[in-house]
């Protein structure tokens, strides 16, 4: 099947030439139908809707409109329903289903799939399990997008939505909102962001663009940027069987959120049991992804130094550098920038800002990451505290402020592994060629995982990476996944 994905027209703030050219291209193509992923109009006014509908009458293909945050300004979603139809819906073909849904919070730029929409999405996916191709569309972006400045407005519950889409084997998700075209493959899911088709609101002085998507054995995304075409192509089939007969290269134990202090926030029993287990696991490296202490106070650091005597690589979390932590962290624990062996090279990043939960990496560090990527080690890992991808069971707040650009660069540089330790929930997802693994807190009472406090082991084999989670209290193991390595 072949479809066009357009977005963010923002009537009346349009460049008429871009609109006409796009519509003409679509009319003259063999695409089946068009999906518009929101921000049809700019302010949600009646006149704007009238003008938009009038203009789109030139389109000779069926079209699905998905509401965007701009459509919902000034109670505009009522007009959207009157002019266009329901905010959530399903389009079904012989072997495909398109599910589109509202992610708008009226008068807000942020997005959310509401509780009722989430349940509806789940039921609708369940009802269409037999469809070969499953496409889900909503306005706000599911994962951070590059070149769009500060990361904001990703769906509040993007972690849960992503988890749901992966569990039900959705093939394609279409988003708009960021006015910058981008394509990622995350596990088996291809995530496509459209640029703005005709609005003056482009980023980086970018051109207007839209996508043509073709799905057969592959998913091909063509971004038409007027005079320039970008193409991405992904196989739909995935490696399923892994033969244990593969050489084991090394083992990383990944921990986070020890949150050591004198209060009962620090669960000493969990901590001691976890470290008893770690001593039996023979790791080649132990990496601590931050929040060593509960607050950056002297007494906590003294205690932490007593508890953490095993050789460990540390990156700080926001708890480690608040109050006096900024001075205490380097005094008590070594922070090294890189650790390089023949088999593996690590780069450790400080993503924390003083007295703030929000993480940031920054442009200067990006240059050093580029240099690091040229180190000739076989396997490259980046370690930081804050999240690069949304985590299930958590809100989106743990994402780096510059997650869009950092994620883009790390995947482009084909970094093999990224280790993070925010949000207190384990997660392991492969995006493009990069596996991103998040650790739960090891011994902090505040955690979000029903499996309980835990840490991860990452076993790197010649042919694959095998990741499991180990429960701090009992030492029982739970497989998070296994991924083929690029060779």
């Amino acid at each position, binding site marked *: 099947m072949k479809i066009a994905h357009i977005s963010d027209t923002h009537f009346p703030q349009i460049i008429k030439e871009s609109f006409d050219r796009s519509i003409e291209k679509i009319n003259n193509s063999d695409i089946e139908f068009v999906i518009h992923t929101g921000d049809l109009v700019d302010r949600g006014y009646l006149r704007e809707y009238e003008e938009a509908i009038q203009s789109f009458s030139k389109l000779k293909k069926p079209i699905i409109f998905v509401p965007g945050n701009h459509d919902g300004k000034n109670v505009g979603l009522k007009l959207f329903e009157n002019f266009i139809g329901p905010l959530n819906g399903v389009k079904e073909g012989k072997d495909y289903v398109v599910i589109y849904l509202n992610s708008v919070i009226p008068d807000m730029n942020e997005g959310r799939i*509401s*509780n009722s929409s989430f349940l509806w999405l789940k039921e609708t996916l369940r009802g269409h399990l037999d469809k070969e191709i499953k496409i889900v569309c909503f306005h706000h972006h599911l994962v951070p997008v590059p070149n769009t400045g500060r990361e904001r407005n990703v769906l509040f519950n993007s972690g849960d939505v992503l988890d749901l889409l992966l569990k039900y084997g959705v093939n394609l998700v279409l988003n708009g909102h960021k006015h910058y075209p981008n394509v990622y493959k995350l596990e088996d899911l291809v995530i496509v962001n459209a640029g703005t088709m005709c609005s003056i609101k482009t980023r980086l002085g970018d051109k207007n663009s839209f996508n043509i998507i073709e799905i057969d054995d592959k998913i091909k995304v063509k971004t038409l940027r007027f005079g320039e075409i970008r193409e991405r192509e992904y196989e739909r089939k995935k490696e399923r069987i892994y033969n244990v007969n593969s050489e084991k290269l090394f083992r990383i134990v990944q921990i986070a959120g020890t949150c050591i202090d004198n209060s009962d926030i620090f669960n000493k029993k969990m901590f001691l049991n976890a470290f008893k287990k770690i001593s039996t696991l023979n790791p080649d490296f132990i990496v601590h992804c931050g929040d060593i202490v509960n607050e950056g106070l002297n007494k906590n650091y003294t205690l932490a130094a007593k508890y953490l005597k095993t050789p460990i690589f540390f990156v700080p979390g926001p708890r480690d550098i608040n109050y006096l932590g900024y001075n205490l962290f380097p005094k008590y624990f070594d922070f090294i920038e890189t650790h390089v062996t023949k088999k593996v090279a690590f780069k450790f990043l400080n993503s924390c800002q003083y007295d703030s939960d929000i993480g940031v990496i920054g442009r200067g560090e990006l240059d050093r990451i580029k240099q690091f990527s040229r180190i000739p080690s076989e396997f490259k890992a980046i370690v930081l505290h804050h999240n690069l991808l949304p985590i299930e069971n958590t809100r989106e707040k743990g994402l780096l402020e510059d997650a869009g650009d950092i994620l883009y660069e790390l995947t482009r540089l084909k970094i093999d592994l990224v280790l993070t330790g925010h949000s207190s929930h384990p997660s392991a997802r492969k995006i493009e060629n990069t596996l991103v693994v998040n650790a739960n807190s090891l011994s902090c009472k505040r955690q979000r995982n029903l499996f309980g406090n835990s840490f991860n082991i990452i076993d790197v084999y010649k042919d694959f990476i095998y990741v499991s989670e180990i429960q701090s209290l009992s030492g029982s193991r739970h497989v998070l996944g296994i991924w083929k390595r690029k060779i």
Partner: protein
Amino acid sequence: MFLDIEKAKYPIKQFITRGIIGIDKNETIKNACKKMTEFGISSLAVLENENIIGFLSKKDVIKGIAEGLSVNAKINKIMSKNLVFCESSVSIGEALEIMANFQVRHILVKEKEEFIGIFSLKDIIDLQKFSLETQISSD
């Protein structure tokens, strides 16, 4: 842990461990045990030319050893040749019923004529995670 009916209707697809860990049919029982320990799992798919031809669980190993087989015997002597499987779209309740009928703790999951994963009784813990889904968002 109790499984409530409301959740039991959801397809097995959501709960499987993605990826199947397998071992060559010519490996010894000892080696299979080593690998199960190394990977922290209690079953292995048995492979011939990267195709699944059998299934080996901890139970098969114990039974084989109890019957007097050497640890150096090949695993194809003790593996189950009858593969217990279900389609990825069946509900978790249905899958559990099949498992009960065959009296096994693991079931292979098939989609479009291809095995895509394994569901084990242990995975049921994941069901409980469900109750937390999107509590953070509501209208």
